[in-house]
């Protein structure tokens, strides 16, 4: 598609008097390898290409997409989208195309499409063997590798014209351990806006072992206690808590609709003064990083909460216009099939000053969380829940035994106010974040920190009666 054709399509889309029209053209080449049962079970690859056209008139958005890319069909699609969002008789002119400079230069050392499938398969098999070698109680190991190369062209009637190439690579290991009737699992993953070098620059053997060792460890774990108690989240545990407890609530669409506990609270204290929350789209190589967002806005680093005070929300173009600010580079979409909405990228709580080891040593009792799993939040009232993948009961600064089956339940703003100590470490985990049915790659992190109290939902009963309850199986 030439610029001239794109601008004709946009002209058509503005035809019925809308304020804004945008074209998003995506070509995505993906490949995936899956190893299970000690062998390569599936290799899949393909191309998905399509164009999405968005038209905005006032508060009304219309979106149409097609993977029929003929110029004549795209003109029709533009017309359909235009009809969905009509405002006035006045037809706006399209501004001349210009490309805003990117604040980042991404260098893909080993573009995945240039690597032979044999080499990818070899790495996957090595990882599988490493996990299986940990212990003979490992019953099953699944290794999934995937890479994607996404070429996008974004053009809108405000004159933005951006071409961007995103490369992402991901590896995950899922181990199942069994002893008698008891089955436990362990999971670790790795991913980034990088090429195949991901598997060379990271210790994938260690990753495999960690997943398998966690499954084994959980075989000997006791049921987690239940009730309110202090919780130490270590820097290695990942950022699920910050993602759920405040990240989603700081997305401008939810804020503007009055669906967030953080709405109308800019400049107010919403967290402990030890808490600074950042969403950074420029962190080199991280899973949520890219040069531009899916509306052609250059990505940037945004401080959302500074020393406990709410400073900013995450914006896309539409919500930014409404608040008369500029987009923060957080307009993202899963593919050409979806309209962009404000989304997180790489979200983290900034490290503090305390030595993490000292934090653990100084904890009298509570739950020590070494790895978090998935989570969920109701942004309206800030209630959230997240899963604990590896945790220990802690007593007088020592981890006394591992516990399993715990979920932590809390309220976002309340939890962030209850943070007493923040460590000087920081560890990222990756994930696919879901919102309105769209999944986008993100990463999140936090330093080691102590939350004065959270509800731990285990099966082990009151923490004081620990050991007296029998686990039903």
């Amino acid at each position: 598609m030439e610029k001239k054709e794109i601008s004709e399509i946009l002209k058509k889309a503005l035809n019925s008097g809308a304020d804004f029209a945008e074209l998003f053209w995506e070509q995505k080449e993906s490949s995936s390898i899956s190893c299970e049962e000690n062998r390569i079970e599936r290799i899949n690859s393909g191309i998905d290409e399509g164009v999405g056209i968005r038209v905005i008139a006032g508060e009304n958005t219309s979106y149409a997409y097609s993977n029929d890319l003929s110029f004549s069909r795209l003109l029709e699609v533009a017309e359909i989208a235009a009809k969905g969002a009509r405002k006035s008789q006045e037809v706006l002119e399209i501004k001349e195309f210009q490309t805003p400079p990117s604040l980042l230069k991404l260098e893909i050392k080993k573009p995945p499409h240039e690597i032979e499938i044999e080499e990818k398969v070899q790495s996957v098999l090595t990882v599988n063997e490493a996990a299986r070698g940990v212990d003979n109680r490992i019953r099953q190991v699944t290794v999934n590798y995937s890479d994607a190369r996404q070429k996008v062209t974004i053009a809108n009637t405000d004159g933005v014209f951006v071409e961007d190439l995103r490369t992402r690579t991901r590896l995950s290991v899922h181990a199942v351990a069994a002893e008698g009737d008891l089955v436990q699992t362990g999971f670790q993953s790795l991913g980034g806006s990088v090429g195949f070098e991901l598997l060379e620059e990271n210790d994938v053997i260690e990753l495999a072992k960690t997943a398998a060792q966690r499954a084994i460890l959980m075989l000997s774990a006791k049921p987690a206690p239940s009730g309110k108690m202090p919780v130490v989240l270590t820097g290695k545990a990942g950022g699920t808590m910050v993602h759920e407890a405040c990240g989603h609530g700081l997305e401008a669409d939810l804020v503007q609709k009055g669906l967030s506990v953080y709405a109308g609270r800019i400049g107010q204290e919403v967290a402990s003064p030890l808490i600074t929350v950042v969403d950074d789209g420029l962190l080199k190589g991280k899973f949520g990083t890219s040069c531009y967002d899916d509306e052609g806005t250059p990505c940037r680093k945004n401080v959302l909460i500074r020393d406990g005070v709410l400073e900013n929300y995450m914006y896309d173009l539409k919500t930014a216009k409404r608040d008369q600010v500029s987009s923060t580079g957080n307009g993202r979409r899963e593919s050409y099939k979806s309209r962009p909405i404000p989304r997180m990228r790489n979200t983290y709580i900034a490290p503090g000053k305390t030595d993490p080891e000292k934090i653990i040593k100084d904890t009298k009792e509570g739950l020590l969380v070494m790895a978090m799993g998935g989570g969920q939040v109701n942004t309206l009232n800030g209630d959230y829940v997240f899963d604990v993948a590896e945790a220990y009961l802690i007593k007088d600064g020592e981890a006394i035994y591992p516990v399993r089956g715990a979920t932590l339940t809390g309220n976002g703003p309340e939890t962030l106010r209850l943070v007493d100590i923040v460590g000087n470490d920081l560890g990222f985990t990756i994930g696919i974040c879901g919102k309105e049915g769209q999944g986008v790659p993100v990463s999140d992190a936090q330093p080691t920190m102590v939350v004065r109290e959270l509800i731990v939902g285990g099966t082990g009963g009151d923490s004081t009666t620990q050991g007296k309850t029998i686990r039903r199986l």
Partner: protein
Amino acid sequence: MEIQLLKERQFDVYKEKGVKYSMETVAPKVLDMAQRKGAELAEVFLLDSQKLTIEVASQKVENLKLSEERGFGLRVISQQRLGYAYSSDLSEKALIKTVERAIYNSRLVAEDSAWDVATLGKSYPVLDLYDEEIIRKTVEEKISLAQEVEKTALASDSRVRQVEKAVYQDSSYRISLYNTRGLVCSYQGSYCGLYGVVIGQEGEDAQTGFSMNFSLKYKELNPTKVGLEAAEKAVRMLGAKSMPSAKLPVVFEPYVMTGILEVLQTAFSGKAVIKGTSFLAGKEGKKVASPLVRIIDHGALPGQVGSSPFDSEGVPTGETVLVQDGELLGFLHNLYTASKLGVVSTGNAVRSSFKSTPEVGATNFYFDKGTVSREELIGEIKRGLYVTEVMGLHTANPISGDFSLGASGLLIENGELTTPVKGVAIAGNLQGLLLGIDAVADDLTFYVGQGAPTVRVQGLMISGK
């Protein structure tokens, strides 16, 4: 607005270099190419679909989305190795590239004699899956249904602050399967639905309520019911507080029970049996649940959104009883898992799109209804928790069966629903939960191809303040 997208576009036709072709012509071409390149068996899955979504806020259309999607997925079996590739591009060049990729991908996959494609079935269930009315109705009329959801919710109670979302959605699609064993089959289907997310507010406290109504028939849509139910669910949770930790009887609403059932699905998959990752493996003929439990998968259930005449490998669908009187009868299978375990496919090959390989999955998966009424079931409880919402279901572990969920609901005191509860966690194990069911109500409700009645479980650990 006079959008008539569905009429503007010809179904099942694509253009290349200005010439129109039927999508169906793609399949024989691809199969032929695959065989010439050395595939012993090949299968083409074709999808052509369109979808309309309308979101209304403050009686205005906030978002309108029209989409069309099509593409094909190719499976080849060459020297007992399976290869897969897909493309949304139907040009001659893309077809060749896809065939080459599928064969290339197959080279490094482990050999397995269990891979196969389907032969033509003896008979396929006859189902009424396509409703002309969904296509015929104007966009204005569909908008008015979503507006009705919002209006009803706002008018139902003064504590309803806002309707976060009132949505109308429909889709029509055509699925075709071709393979080198001579299988040729296709069907056309459509569905439509409404859902509403409502916010209730009293003082500082805000709560969300949700309701949906998906159907194969346009005339079965009921916006008033969706609006009222979502509003009621939001309002009844106002003033919710945490409760002290205790082990209590727990009652799951049909919507919540359906969610739990979804996690259980994985354990009923023949694939999980082969991998040793199902806690039900090896328990056929044994008691795995309370005698009150009957769990069924039925791919040809009339009137349900999950129905189709054949699965995504072309095997006819039908009813599979998985648990009867608490006893495990079997598992769900596609051709591969069935062959591995020496049984026949249950017609449960499922693909999420043309981009994915056919895996084992559920069709209409449901927990059969019992005989008591919901009121009787609650009436027998002195103190318990009626759970209306759980959070973090996707974190439940389908392999070990362990779950720990954030929950909210209503307290049951002396057989009555009393005060709202939030901020608690319920933990347990799915096996224990199934065995601990001591009452099943007669109110089986379906939510897009999955369903359950109200279910009572003896004692679960509730963690609170």
